[in-house]
């Protein structure tokens, strides 16, 4: 079995198993801890509307706070969008998804996707350095924060290397690209990448909790 065979076969399968089981374990494990019913008489509210509202609103600019956090917001939007463009609109990626899902969608030109990937890498490296140097972020960061960023940067870097055929045989670069993605899948449930899943219940409970008090959170 070659490295590529491993990456395409058992590596991918097992990393996906760990990803899915890990997400469910961590998500349900937290959600299944009991919480007492709130006995305080609520103001008129809609739990669903308030909860879903905050799921949406916390992705938007933050009103009066915005001028103090604009850099974090803009950089955050930028690299997340860059990552989604790279993952979802690169032709070979779409072919891969099509082989699993049975349907595909139009791709963006390779140049656009590579540019998005390169910008995303640059932003993530800049944010990595900022995390090491900004006093607030430096103080509150732990291994997870840095390692998770590396886990996201590596698939982007190996992807561009594989696309450009730089540094090794294409098959080797492709295998490294796949393995870096699989490493990210394996790490996902254990680190902060889990916020992708956890942010939904967290935002929902913020919205519904404050909504009971008549506060639009």
């Amino acid at each position: 079995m070659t490295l590529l065979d491993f990456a395409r076969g058992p590596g991918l399968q097992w990393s996906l198993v760990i990803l899915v089981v890990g997400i469910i374990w961590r998500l349900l494990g937290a959600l299944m801890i009991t919480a007492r019913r709130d006995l305080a008489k609520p103001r008129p509210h809609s739990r669903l509307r308030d909860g879903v509202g905050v799921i949406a609103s916390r992705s938007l600019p933050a009103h009066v706070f915005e001028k103090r956090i604009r850099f974090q917001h803009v950089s955050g939007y930028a690299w997340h969008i860059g990552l989604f463009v790279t993952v979802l609109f690169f032709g070979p990626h779409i072919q891969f998804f099509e082989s699993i899902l049975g349907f595909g969608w139009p791709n963006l030109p390779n140049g656009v996707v590579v540019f998005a990937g390169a910008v995303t890498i640059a932003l993530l490296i800049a944010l990595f350095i900022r995390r090491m140097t900004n006093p607030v972020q430096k103080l509150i960061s732990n291994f997870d924060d840095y390692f998770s960023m590396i886990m996201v940067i590596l698939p982007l870097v190996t992807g561009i290397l594989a696309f450009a055929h730089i540094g090794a045989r294409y098959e080797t670069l492709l295998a490294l690209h796949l393995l870096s993605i699989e490493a990210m899948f394996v790490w996902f449930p254990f680190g902060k990448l889990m916020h992708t899943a956890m942010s939904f219940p967290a935002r929902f409970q913020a919205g519904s909790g404050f909504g009971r008090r008549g506060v639009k959170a």
Partner: protein
Amino acid sequence: MSVDQAAFAEFREALKAPPTPVDDGLSDAERLARARQTFFARVDRRAAVDLDTCIHCGMCAEACHFYMATEDERYTPTYKFAPLRRFYRREVSPLRWFFKPFTRKLRLAELQDWQELVYESCTGCGRCDMICPMGINLSTMIGIMRQGLASAGLVPAELRALQSEQSDSNSLFGVGAPELTALVDRLREQGVGLPLDRDRADVLMLTTAVEVRLFPESLKAAARILDKAGVNWTLSSTAFEAANIGLISGDRDTRRAAMRRIVDQAKACGAQCVVVPESGHAYQALRWEAANELGEELPFDVYAIAEYAAELVNDGKVKLKATADPKTLTYHDPCRLGRHGGVYEAPRELLAEAGHHVRDTEANRRENVCCGGGCGEYTISHGAALRQKAFEVKRHELDATGAEAVVTGCANCRINFLIGAANSGWDKPILSLVETVAENIAD
């Protein structure tokens, strides 16, 4: 409307002298075990989700008035409960078997170090809750930290002294039933009748030691509004104190006892509603926490005096006349009345009804900047310098409105403003909402 300057000066001086710490006789091991036990008990599903979701972005720092005033990274809200988060990961998280080998145990020295961050540099204002991109309720997490520290006997000496006073003798700042009765008698001589200890009443009106000692005009103003509306109300000499030091310090027994006293008295006199005076944390304690703390739905409604007065005005039971001296005022939203309680519009409506023009600070309502001394913080002598810096942030916002005076609906905020103003020579009048409204009751 004016504050008794002699009483205020005496009060301020008293705050400068911290009480001697009391040795509670707990061993270090007992302290740690108690903190752990409290953390275990308080981390429910909601807390678990919050503790599991932080991405360490640090945006919460930008909402904290202590960080804004100093740029000291230690005041980053998510850092203020870092020990709790680690405890969660190591002991409670569904992945604790994975995290345990890499996660340090909770240590007593660490909790002692965090006392300053949890009590002196956090007012629990919850502004950070509004900025977090993940929706984490950071102020609740810091509240759990306070509860853990309280059970470990790590409450600052000032709060601990107040906590003991409230739980041992049902008084605060030396104000108990005799002092309230004396005030009622004094006011009666002045022609202001305050009903005390009526057997049956529709409304149980609360007050606070701070009102009795510093702001009796606020109590008189509330009485005028209730009397004008023809409400059958009473004060209770045994359950008049709305302030809840247990909520502030984190001490469960004090918190529950103070709540129980009011709830039992309201039931005993058949009150349909309890009206909380100008005290943000007291409103939070009774309106939002008491039912859960006592494990029973309350058989009466709880109102802040601002929202109760607004309801009486809206129902036509009290009419306000436009003031002959209209002012441009700015309303400071007390955190626990507004952001934690949803009382935003009633105070503004009342001021407008009284003919004043309200000009908001840039950050207002849910995003309002804290006065800097809420949640009992103004009592902690060691934090005075930091509080003054935080006050300057607020002062800058208030000055930027160009308003002639500041109105607020919380005596705690008012005291902090008065202290900050006295320290810095700020001469902006700081007014009580209920007093401002009562001045304009139509005959």
